[in-house]
C-alpha cells in the first residue's frame, strides 16, 4: 500500500508541477533520491508563467510596507511618507478591488467593463492623493488636523 500510495502521490504531484497528463503509467519508484530529483527538477521551457506567483508575493510585500507606513506617519510625518502612502494605499486598494471583481463579476464583457472602471478609479485616486500632497497640507498633516477636532 505504501508503494502504491507514493506512486499515486508522485504522479499527481508531477502532473500538477509540470502541467502534463501521463499517457503511460510512470514506473514505480520508491527510491528517495530519484523521487526528490523528479519533483524538484526545474520546470521545462514551456512551463506556465510565474506571473501569478510573483503577483501574490508582491501583494504581501505591499501589505507589509503599508503596515510599516502607519508608525512612520506618526513618527516622521512629511512629504516622503505622504507620497509613499499615496502610492502604497492606492496600490493595495487597487489589487484588493481587483480580486473582488475577479470573485464576483462574471461574463467576458462585464469583466472588461469592471476592470476598466477600476483602472480609471485607481489612476484618479493616485492623482488626487498626489495633488493633495503637492498643493494642500498633505495626508499626514490632514489626518493630524482632523484628529485634533
Amino acid at each position, binding site marked *: 500500500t505504501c508503494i502504491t500510495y507514493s506512486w499515486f502521490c508522485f504522479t499527481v504531484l508531477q502532473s500538477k508541477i509540470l502541467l*502534463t*497528463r501521463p499517457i503511460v503509467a510512470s514506473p514505480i519508484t520508491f527510491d528517495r533520491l530519484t523521487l526528490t530529483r523528479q519533483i524538484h527538477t526545474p520546470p521545462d521551457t514551456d512551463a506556465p508563467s510565474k506571473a501569478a506567483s510573483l503577483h501574490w508575493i508582491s501583494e504581501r510585500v505591499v501589505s507589509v510596507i503599508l503596515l510599516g507606513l502607519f508608525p512612520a506617519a506618526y513618527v516622521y510625518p512629511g512629504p516622503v511618507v505622504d507620497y509613499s502612502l499615496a502610492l502604497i494605499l492606492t496600490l493595495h*486598494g487597487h489589487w*484588493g478591488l481587483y480580486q473582488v471583481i475577479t470573485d464576483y463579476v462574471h461574463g467576458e464583457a462585464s469583466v472588461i467593463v469592471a476592470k476598466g472602471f477600476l483602472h480609471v*478609479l485607481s489612476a*484618479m485616486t493616485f492623482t*488626487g492623493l498626489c495633488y493633495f500632497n503637492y498643493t494642500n497640507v498633505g495626508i499626514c498633516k*490632514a489626518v493630524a488636523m482632523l484628529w485634533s*477636532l
Partner: protein
Amino acid sequence: MVPMATTAKEEMFQFWEKNTKLNRPMSPHVSVYKWSLPMMMSITHRGTGVAMSLGISCFSLAALVLPEQFPYYLELVKSLSLGPVLIYSAKFALAFPLSYHTWNGIRHLVWDMGKGFKMLQVYQSGVLVLALTLLSSAGLAAM
C-alpha cells in the same frame, strides 16, 4: 507525458461560458450554510477593505474638485460645534474599519506564512483580532 491542451485560465473561462449558457440555477449557499465566526470575519475583512478604498477614492476626488484648502473645510466642521460624544463616535467610526482590517490583515499574513490553520487557532486568533480591534479603535478615537 503530453502537455495539457488547456490552461487553468482557459478551463475557468469554458466553465463560466457553459454555465451561463445553460442558465443553471445556483445552489443556495449563504442562505443555507450556518454562519461561523471565521466566515463573518472574512467577509468583514473584505467589506472594510472595499469601504476604505472607496472612501480614499472619494477623498481623492474631493481633493481634485473642491476649490478651498483642507483647513477651510475643517473650520466648517468645527463651526458646527458638534458635541464631544458625536466627535468621539465619528472618530471611532473611522478608526474601526482601519483597526479591524489591519489586525485581521496581520492574521492573514500569519496564515500566508503557513501558520495557525488548526480550527482552534483560527477561532483564537479571530477573537484576539476582535479584542485588539475594539481596544485600538477606542484608544485611537480618544486621541
